């Protein structure tokens, strides 16, 4: 404690230079005076007494120095002195320093941006109390990939019997609800949770409390801080008041922190209601007594000190026990778990692969940037060899010189790191603005958190040390005799391949790799843009409502949608209005297994089919070709069910035979096929064509209502965006409290479906571009430097009769040899790495011929320019000036 205090005092002494020196001089003077007086009392002369006093003291100057060293931290002081010196020497070459800082800034910024994604999706623990002991549990079935949610009885059994956990909570992941009051009516999403949810997760409330264990059937709600701020104006008196969700009244008991979106950190929920009341908000919820429907996400709080291995063992035992007790449903189950808030098991693989690929790319980028800086530092070291030699001759140690150069590179890196953080602040904001195409709300916001800042700081310091190492070594070992004569002292005579040439070769090689990958992703975007999505996008306006959330019965919903279609159809400029549940390319929708009805024997084809609802005219409005049969028309809600299927469905289930009039069964219903339409992309642009079955909207609203609401599709020959306001007015004319959401033109909607190839192309495009610029700067720098070092030699050559053209060729040949070597090294590396990217490419092979042919040519062309400029400068050297200059 007291030692620390002393260090702090000395730190202050170092940093603020207290005027204590004078103070001590006076004290010392007093001491000497007292001692002199004593000597004089003993009979000595004043001079002799003072001389002896000084001897006893051990020399005034020595004492002063010892005292001063004790006042400050000497090592820190010399460090600061070096720092000041380094900063000054960097400031002497502002252009070089700026290029170095910007290079590192771009490299570090790219790394910071990607690390912020890693931090957000891999490292960030869930915003719960003690995240390390909260586990998310899943069911894994032997025959299937990971992972399934839980049926209620299984959750209840597990909660009762698993002793590794102090308690478990379950939640239903997403509930849509309408909310009104305080602005336009809005659709919001929430979760249905067991009442112990907030106790188990230990989420601290901003206001109020969570749920009591007896709350399961009581209409209470916890609101997210975000919803509370947006719609309730941060009203601190809201606890105990009622809010209306989908027409039902709920009492607010707590406000959950804004950081809580969902335990899985992907879904974006804004309210939580007890699971027991969820059926009021969601139709057709699985019954609590069924062991067949998997619908609940489960988290468990570990008992203190229970190791993970014990949890695995206990869950295995329980799985076997359940399998024996319920062979029909639990036979092939076993349980897996991970820390709550980790990436969902299903997405983990691709996300990790994508992040690793990006990490690799940004590390390569940093290597390119670092090579530039090392190169610059080398050039600096060369131009300072004389200064270094003088210092050495005057007695500076090599260690001290090394420290000076290292200090400079660390300083450069730290400045670069700061630049990088600024760049990535902007980049993460830009990335967060992209929205994934998904029918449910996702929270994918990324930002710069403390973890990322620490990482960036460490990265910058490491970079600085690594980059400065070689130049520091070289700078501290000048060939003294040469240096003092003013000749080359660091570039050793007789060494053919300099380190800088190696660096620049590596740079160009790496940037070839980056550019090839960039090329692949750009080609992928181009190829994605030419994918036939199966419907037209022009002149279409989309707008969604969900009357069910406002208390409409199925019949009322049907009638309301029909009335709305009629009203909108009457608007000027509208030539077609149809309705579906969810627009195509929304990222996913209902799907079910289908078979040809009547053939229930085993071995019969069974295909997973995406289900959509449609009203008459839907296919014509979207410009989808009707290939056989007829369109919907005249279906009654309780009449025989009809369906229109796409060609893929026919191919897969009927082997291409005419299916009109045939019956197919799936999801508990049998449908008569009345028509066939062309294929369309259902969930994502990149998917293989899926079988789709379109059902009559009026026949489906009652038994299988859409959780996502219903989407009005309006066709106009004009600009669909202009229609939005008048269509909204028609909705409000029927029901002023109706929440409208997902309002966009079909072109906007489809553009969002391309977000993945676009983001990938953008990221890699930016990285590839930066890499190219940095490598070009590097090549240019090395060539310019070589020319300036050889000014004298070139001057002699020209004096001896060399033509300017020959000189230019001499320089350019040197540069192009480096480039050629780099291309020869980089091309196979790019070829191998391209495989890694293959799973993210749309419609092109990873070894795309065009990319691998064009990129080296482009790179060589850029390199040619980078060499041509120094070459021209070499050719314009005036022999007389060159030889005279010393």
């Amino acid at each position: 404690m007291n030692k620390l205090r002393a260090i702090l005092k000395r730190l202050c002494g170092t940093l603020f230079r207290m005027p204590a020196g004078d103070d001590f001089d006076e004290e010392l003077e007093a001491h000497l005076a007292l001692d002199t007086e004593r000597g004089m009392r003993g009979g000595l002369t004043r001079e002799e007494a003072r001389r002896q006093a000084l001897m006893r003291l051990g020399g005034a100057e020595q004492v002063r120095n010892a005292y001063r060293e004790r006042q400050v931290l000497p090592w820190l002081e010399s460090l600061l002195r070096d720092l000041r010196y380094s900063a000054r020497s960097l400031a002497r070459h502002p252009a070089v320093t700026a290029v170095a800082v910007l290079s590192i800034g771009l490299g570090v910024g790219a790394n910071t941006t990607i690390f912020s994604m890693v931090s957000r999706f891999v490292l960030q623990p869930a915003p719960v109390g003690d995240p390390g002991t909260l586990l998310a549990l899943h069911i894994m079935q032997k025959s299937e990939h990971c992972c399934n949610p839980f049926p209620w009885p299984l959750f209840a059994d597990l909660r009762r019997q698993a002793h590794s956990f102090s308690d478990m909570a379950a939640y239903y992941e997403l509930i849509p609800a309408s909310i009104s009051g305080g602005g336009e009516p809005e659709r919001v999403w929430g979760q249905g949770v067991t009442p112990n949810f907030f106790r188990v997760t230990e989420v601290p409330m901003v206001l109020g409390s969570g749920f009591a264990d007896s709350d399961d059937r009581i209409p209470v709600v916890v609101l997210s801080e975000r919803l509370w701020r947006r719609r309730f104006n941060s009203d601190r008196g809201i606890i105990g008041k009622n809010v209306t969700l989908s027409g039902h009244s709920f009492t607010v008991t707590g406000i959950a922190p804004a950081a809580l979106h969902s335990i899985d950190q992907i879904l974006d929920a804004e309210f939580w209601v007890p699971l027991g009341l969820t059926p009021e908000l969601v139709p057709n919820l699985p019954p609590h007594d069924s062991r067949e429907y998997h619908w609940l996400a489960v988290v468990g709080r570990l008992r203190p000190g229970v190791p993970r291995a014990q949890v695995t063992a206990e869950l295995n035992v329980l799985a076997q026990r359940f399998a024996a007790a319920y062979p029909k449903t639990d036979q092939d189950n076993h349980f897996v778990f991970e820390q709550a808030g980790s990436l969902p098991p299903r997405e983990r693989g691709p996300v990790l692969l994508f992040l690793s690929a990006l990490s690799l790319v940004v590390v390569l980028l940093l290597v390119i940037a670092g090579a530039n800086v090392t190169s610059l530092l080398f050039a600096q070291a060369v131009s300072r060899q004389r200064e270094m030699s003088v210092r050495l001759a005057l007695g500076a140690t090599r260690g001290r010189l090394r420290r000076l150069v290292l200090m400079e590179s660390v300083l450069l890196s730290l400045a670069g790191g700061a630049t990088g953080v600024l760049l990535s602040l902007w980049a993460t904001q830009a990335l967060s603005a992209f929205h994934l195409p998904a029918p449910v709300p996702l929270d994918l916001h990324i930002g710069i958190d403390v973890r990322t800042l620490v990482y960036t700081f460490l990265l910058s310091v490491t970079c600085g040390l690594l980059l400065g190492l070689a130049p520091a070594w070289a700078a501290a070992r000048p060939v003294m005799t040469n240096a003092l004569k003013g000749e080359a002292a660091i570039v050793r005579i007789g060494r053919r391949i300099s380190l800088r040439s190696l660096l620049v070769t590596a740079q160009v090689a790496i940037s070839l790799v980056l550019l090839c990958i960039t090329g692949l992703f750009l080609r992928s975007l181009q190829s994605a843009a030419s994918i036939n999505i199966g419907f037209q996008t022009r002149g279409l306006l989309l707008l969604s409502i969900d009357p069910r959330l406002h208390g409409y019965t199925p019949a009322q919903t049907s009638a309301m949608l029909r009335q709305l279609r009629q009203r909108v159809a009457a608007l000027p400029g509208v030539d077609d209005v149809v309705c579906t549940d969810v627009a195509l390319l929304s990222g996913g929708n209902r799907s079910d297994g289908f078979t040809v009805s009547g053939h229930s024997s085993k071995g019969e084809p069974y295909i997973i089919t995406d289900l959509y609802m449609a009203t008459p005219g839907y296919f014509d409005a979207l410009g989808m070709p009707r290939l056989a049969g007829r369109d919907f028309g005249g279906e009654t809600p309780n009449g025989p069910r009809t369906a229109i299927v796409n060609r893929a469905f026919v191919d897969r289930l009927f082997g291409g035979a005419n299916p009109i009039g045939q019956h197919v069964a799936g999801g508990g219903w049998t449908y008569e096929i009345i028509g066939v339409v062309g294929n369309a992309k259902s969930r994502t642009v990149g998917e293989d064509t899926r079988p789709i079955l379109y059902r009559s909207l009026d026949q489906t609203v009652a038994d299988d209502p859409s959780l996502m609401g219903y989407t009005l599709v309006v066709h106009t020959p004009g600009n669909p965006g202009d229609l939005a306001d008048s269509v909204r007015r028609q909705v409000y004319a029927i029901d002023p409290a109706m929440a409208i959401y997902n309002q966009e033109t079909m072109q906007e909607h489809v553009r969002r479906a391309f977000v993945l190839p676009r983001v990938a192309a953008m990221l890699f495009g930016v990285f590839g571009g930066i890499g190219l610029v940095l490598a070009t700067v590097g090549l240019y720098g090395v060539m310019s430097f070589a020319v300036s070092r050889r000014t004298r030699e070139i001057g002699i050559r020209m004096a001896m009769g060399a033509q300017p053209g020959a000189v230019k060729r001499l320089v350019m040949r040197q540069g192009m040899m480096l480039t050629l070597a780099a291309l020869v090294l980089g091309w196979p590396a790019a070829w191998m790495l391209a495989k890694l990217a293959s799973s993210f490419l749309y419609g092109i092979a990873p070894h795309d011929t065009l990319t691998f042919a064009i990129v080296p040519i482009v790179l060589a062309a850029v390199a040619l320019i980078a060499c041509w400029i120094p070459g021209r400068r070499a050719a314009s050297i005036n022999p007389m000036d060159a030889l005279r200059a010393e």
Partner: protein
Amino acid sequence: MGDKTDVWQGTLALMVLRTLETMGPQHGYGLARRIEQTSGDLLELNYGTLYPALLKLEQEGYIRSRWGASENNRRAKFYELTRAGQKQLRKAAREWEQTTEILARFLNPAGQG
């Protein structure tokens, strides 16, 4: 002169604290003289080493200083013990006694002591 002993590392601080405890506030020169006298002039104290030691103790908060007038009305800096210094003195003294006791056992073989 040959009989005098140099001050051992680390013991100077203890001597300073102890002297300040018995004598009350002292200036640097007075302290130096006092330490020499207490040692029966067996110690040869390099006065110069005293001041960094005093600064160290002050930085550690065991003593504090203020300017005052010396016996013959000279301005001098006076040092005095703080409460933390008293505690530290007791602790260091105890440790020192223990050390000497242990060493004494080695130097006086069993039976003789």
